């Protein structure tokens, strides 16, 4: 119960940050990605502000095996830098550059009732399902 309430709270604050920062507005995101045009550096400050607080939080978290609410810390253990990581990230970046949406802002735009935000989220979920299907097929062929 506590876990779910904390999740809801974090989601709400995250959404608030996305709205206030301007990240929920694809036109603003594309203004940041357009280095050759008139460049809007705002997004760099969004990342900078978030990481500044994140650095502190992770330095605290690193020393703990249980969270403040008593749950196991589940930090990523994968350190492999491989084709999947780079290829997937490049593919994500192309999609980001086409629409100006990454996953969080798209969910906020969908919540705001923007039709294109809803269509983007539906396509993104379809893409994630496609990934699951490919992975399951791969696991089968490796297993047999």
């Amino acid at each position, binding site marked *: 119960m506590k876990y*779910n309430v904390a*999740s*809801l709270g*974090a*989601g709400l*604050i*995250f*959404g*608030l*940050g*996305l*709205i*206030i*920062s*301007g990240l*929920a507005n*694809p036109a603003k995101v594309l203004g940041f*990605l357009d*280095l*050759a*045009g008139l460049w809007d550096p*705002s997004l760099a400050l969004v990342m*900078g*502000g*978030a990481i500044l*607080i*994140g650095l502190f*939080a992770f330095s605290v978290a690193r020393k703990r095996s*249980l*969270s*403040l609410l008593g749950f196991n810390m*589940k*930090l990523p253990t994968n350190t492999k*830098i491989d084709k999947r*990581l780079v290829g*997937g*990230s*490049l*593919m994500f*970046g192309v999609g*980001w*550059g*086409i*629409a*100006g*949406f*990454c*996953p*969080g802002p*798209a*969910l906020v735009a969908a919540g*705001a009732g923007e039709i*294109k935000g809803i269509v*983007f989220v*539906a*396509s*993104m*979920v379809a*893409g994630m399902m*496609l990934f699951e299907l490919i992975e399951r097929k791969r696991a089968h062929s490796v297993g047999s």
Partner: protein
Amino acid sequence: MIDIAWSEFTPLSALTGGALIGLAAASFLLLNGRIAGISGILGGLLTPMRNDMIWRLAFLGGLIGMPIVWQLFAELPEIEINAGFPAIIIAGLLVGVGTRYGSGCTSGHGVCGLSRLSPRSLVATLSFMAAGFVTVYIIRHLIGA
């Protein structure tokens, strides 16, 4: 040289919003012990035989619900989406497949991963940023759309 769009530059709201995003990631980490990676939280709903659906739905519900709560008190800032529907669908598919293969997006790799000083996340962030810059350059300045 880079020309800065000073009229579009919003340092105060960018820093405030960024700090709130950091606060959300920090509280999720310190309270629940997890990385606030949005593509991973969403993608985890699609993996079969999971018994951790509820917190995922709660987090995503918060994200989707915030603009609704906001609208109870004030008008939302402008959300300007210039891409057409075919482009939106292609972009959505690329972001869906790409973030799952790359194990993360702007939140998981960009905010949490860099805060964690993870080399893996640094490589991912540089990759999607570079792809984003190049894609916008091609669309706006080579194709001229």
